[in-house]
């Protein structure tokens, strides 16, 4: 992995097409490997009423026949199948996986162990509070830690993911205005924002007004002043923004928003850039959602589960989702009696297993350790930026925090696009960064190394990126045909969307 490529990998891998079928190279679907009579579990005996025909327990019309197409496999078959599939994934444990805005950091394994302790894993969400004091104490401890980290007054651990935390946050803004009999129509969102921001604002009943970022990639205060009227409920801001640039006028921004009676919403997706260094509450942020799978190391899992706690200033606390965890005289309890609450966003109390992991991480780092997270993440991003400057175009030259956005402007003249660069990176043994986002930058390559990457990995990544820049100039077709060394070659996404095949069918076999 750390080895570098002085000569580019050859486009044709000799003999690849004639390699004997190795399971992980071209695995069948598990439905295709099924053989009648195999079974992967040992089930308990049916019980005391074995002989009763099913139809006496349930009317015939409510029953279904055996499901054709369901596979029959032994435990061994299943373990082989999924182990083979796993070998067709790249993983952050192999090298850089620098998806910008995703914070693909190392996921501590002690967290996995802890979330599986039987007292946590086997506790039912509807048990009496007296029997789950450990869980409630854990929620309380996590809330306290997150209050400290965010500088905000209360935190709800209820939302299932960042997008739901965001929805909860902007709903609370809606509820706060409703409570005082006010109706505001708009939410301001910069053009560099995550797509979930406008989607969440829309579902909370607001219309979105987009703010254009200036040449530094930040908000223009005069533009904001003009747009911020008394019909604007909130400004939704990502700090640092998706260009990796910290809004250095954040205090003025807060003043302008508050001056018109609006709320400052902060998308906490990029908290990793400043955790332990400054606190959103001190910046004037009124409401903030966090992604525990970003800053707080709960595993991304191939796309979830996440968790999206939402933190608020005291003024918005009455509107938090139900239930909250409270500390009473007889111990901790869940509080459902919150008349101004926006209500529920999901069943039960939250992604509890993720909360265990996040608290374990925070305690493993400690207060000073969290600041070192931000320091190292920012150091790594700036080192990477320095190493790539002059090789790739930098659309904004503002100081970078935890991530840096380049684009394909220098390579485009040779007909090489961001997509080609991304695919070629796979041949060099890396996962590509986030591409074509933020949408305000044409052909963006958004790179976030995180703090959990060693210098030698950054060095080999920089060398690979430089080599690709050279290839773009000298052998553009090589780059455009990439990747060559991956389990499958470039995939036809257009064909997939034109005539979608979304499941296996026996006929298609």
């Amino acid at each position, binding site marked *: 992995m750390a080895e570098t490529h002085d000569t580019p990998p050859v486009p044709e891998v000799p003999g690849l097409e004639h390699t004997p079928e190795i399971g992980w190279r071209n*695995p069948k679907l598990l439905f295709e490997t*099924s053989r009648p009579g195999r079974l*992967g*579990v040992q089930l*308990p005996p049916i019980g*005391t009423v074995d002989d009763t025909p099913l139809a006496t*327990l349930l009317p015939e019309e409510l*029953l*279904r026949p055996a499901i054709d197409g*369901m596979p029959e496999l032994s*435990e061994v078959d299943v373990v082989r*199948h*999924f182990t083979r599939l796993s*070998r*067709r*994934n790249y993983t952050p444990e192999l090298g850089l996986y620098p*998806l910008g805005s*995703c914070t693909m950091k190392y996921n501590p394994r002690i967290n*996995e162990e802890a979330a599986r302790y*039987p*007292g946590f*894993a086997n506790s039912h*969400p509807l048990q*009496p509070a007296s029997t*789950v004091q450990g869980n409630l104490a854990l929620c309380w401890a996590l809330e306290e830690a997150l209050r400290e980290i965010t500088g905000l007054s209360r935190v709800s651990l209820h939302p*299932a993911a960042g997008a739901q935390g965001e929805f909860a946050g902007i709903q609370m803004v809606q509820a706060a205005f409703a409570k005082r009999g006010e109706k505001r129509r708009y939410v301001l969102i910069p053009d560099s924002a995550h*797509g*979930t921001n*406008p*989607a969440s604002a829309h579902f*909370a009943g607001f219309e979105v007004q987009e703010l254009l970022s200036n040449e530094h990639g930040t908000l223009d205060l005069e533009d904001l002043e003009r747009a911020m009227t008394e019909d604007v409920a909130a400004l939704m801001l990502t700090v640092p923004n998706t260009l990796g640039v*910290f809004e250095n006028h954040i205090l003025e921004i807060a003043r302008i928003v508050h001056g018109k009676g609006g709320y400052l919403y902060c998308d906490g997706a990029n908290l990793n850039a400043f955790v332990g*260094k*400054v606190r959103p509450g001190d910046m004037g942020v009124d409401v903030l959602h966090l992604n525990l799978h970003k800053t707080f190391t709960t595993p991304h*899992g*191939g*796309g979830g*589960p996440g968790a999206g706690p939402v933190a608020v200033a005291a003024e918005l606390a009455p509107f938090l989702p139900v239930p909250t965890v409270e500390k009473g005289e007889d111990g901790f309890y869940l509080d459902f009696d919150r008349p101004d609450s926006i209500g529920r*966003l*999901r*069943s039960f109390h*939250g992604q*509890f*297993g993720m909360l265990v992991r996040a608290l*374990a991480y925070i305690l493993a780092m400690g*207060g000073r*350790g969290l600041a*070192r*997270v931000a320091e190292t993440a920012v*150091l790594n991003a700036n080192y990477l930026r320095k190493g790539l400057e002059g090789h790739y175009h930098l659309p904004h030259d503002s*100081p970078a925090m935890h991530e840096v956005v380049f684009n394909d402007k220098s390579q485009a003249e040779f007909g090489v696009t961001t997509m080609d660069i991304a695919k070629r990176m*796979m041949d060099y043994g890396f996962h590509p960064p986030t591409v074509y986002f933020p949408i305000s930058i044409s052909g963006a390559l958004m790179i976030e190394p995180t703090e*959990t990457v*060693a*210098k030698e990995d950054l060095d080999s990544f920089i060398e690979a990126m430089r080599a690709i820049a050279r290839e773009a100039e000298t052998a553009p077709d090589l780059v455009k045909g990439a990747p060559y060394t991956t389990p499958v*070659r470039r*995939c036809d996404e257009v*064909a997939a969307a034109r005539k979608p095949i*979304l*499941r296996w069918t026996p006929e298609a076999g």
Partner: protein
Amino acid sequence: MTETQTPDPKKAVASEGGHRYLPIGEVDQREMLEAIGAASIEDLFASLPEAIRLQQPVNVAGPLSDQELRSYLHGLEERNQVAGRNLSSFLGAGAYRHDSPAVIDSLITRSEFLTVYTPYQPEVSQGTLQAIFEFQTFMSLLTGLPVANASLYEGASALAEAALMAYRVQRKRHKVIVAGSIHPHYRATLDTYAKNLEDLEVVEVGWDATGRVDLEALEALLDDDTAAVAVQSPNHFGVVEGWSRVSEVAHKAGALSIGVVAEALSMALLQSPGDGGCDIAVGEAQSFGLPVSFGGPYLGFMAARDEYKRSLPGRLAGQTVDALGKRAFVLTLATREQHIRREKATSNICTNQALCALAATIYLSLHGKVGLRRLAEINLRRATTTRRRLAEAGFPVRFDAPCFNEFAVRSPRPVPEVLAHLEARGILGGVPLGGDYPDLEDTFLVAVTECNQPAELDRLVAELATLGGK
């Protein structure tokens, strides 16, 4: 540090040596700063306003070693009383205890599945993509509907997403009718999602003496402004509804039929939502290999008729070919999503529950065609037998309709008293219904799965018999 107290932050010592999660040491840092041309780390934070920069570390405990973390977190988990350790549990109501094969955790904790993200780059994510495709196939087979998505957060928000979807595809219809016998958390969640969408109205319909949807009342509510009717089966009282009777009246009025399943295992044995005429099926698949884990993370699912595939929220994996014509999988139909559509997106859902879906896929592969059905049968038989025995013990059934693995019993004495009596004897006897349904104050829910051993069932029956006077 006492074991069950939060570690005291004041005792935290800031150690400036290496930290086990940070592979950048002092020498690295010096070299890197030099390369950047910065004098110190603080130089890199110059854009942060001076006035608010923290002068002290945030006040949280640590750094703790793995051993200290174990000791603290064991201290917490041991304060819980849980089934299989100190208690017998008959709690269900949307979260069901089932045996989970060991290979699930062994496979899902492989780095290649655990620590990766959404498969945006298909060439290096075929493992995740194929597993999602297989999950979609399983959910399609179980629901009896041709397309299923890559998962949603959990059952309650899945219902909300289904209602919003029905409202989108039905265009000029503004009303969604939901059965009052749908899980109270699901209905509350739908209310939260719907309340700021001014032209979407949510109306509830009650149940009849058998515990099933009151068809007459439903027909009276249905009109040409109704986008959809949502019914849960088995419903929150454990009653198997039968999808067809509801789908028929819904379709007659031009409304869609949404089938909600809070106990996914039931689909192995009961008529599928698709066969019962449902246009959309949503629910909770926690039963497929996920621990009850105090309420999450769980696994929402959604399936629908083919014509709605472009209106589904959430991610979808699809089959295609690579440049050499080999079968490959990709995320597809992304134009529905917020990355492109922004405020016009079908949903704001982004991350879903991929690792939970993988666990379910492994669980379903292991059980397969024969095992899953047999397991469902075991649940049905144990629950039905227990229901009869409790009736004989003086706790009669509340609703005389068929059940699956959960049922409602009428208590001859105040429910809190009965449950407290059982709790004192190490039995979590059930979930009281009075809090959500004042009319059912005398009723509680009892769930029985394969995890409830025969001896446990005997004890429950015996304890209740002392209270039931039989």
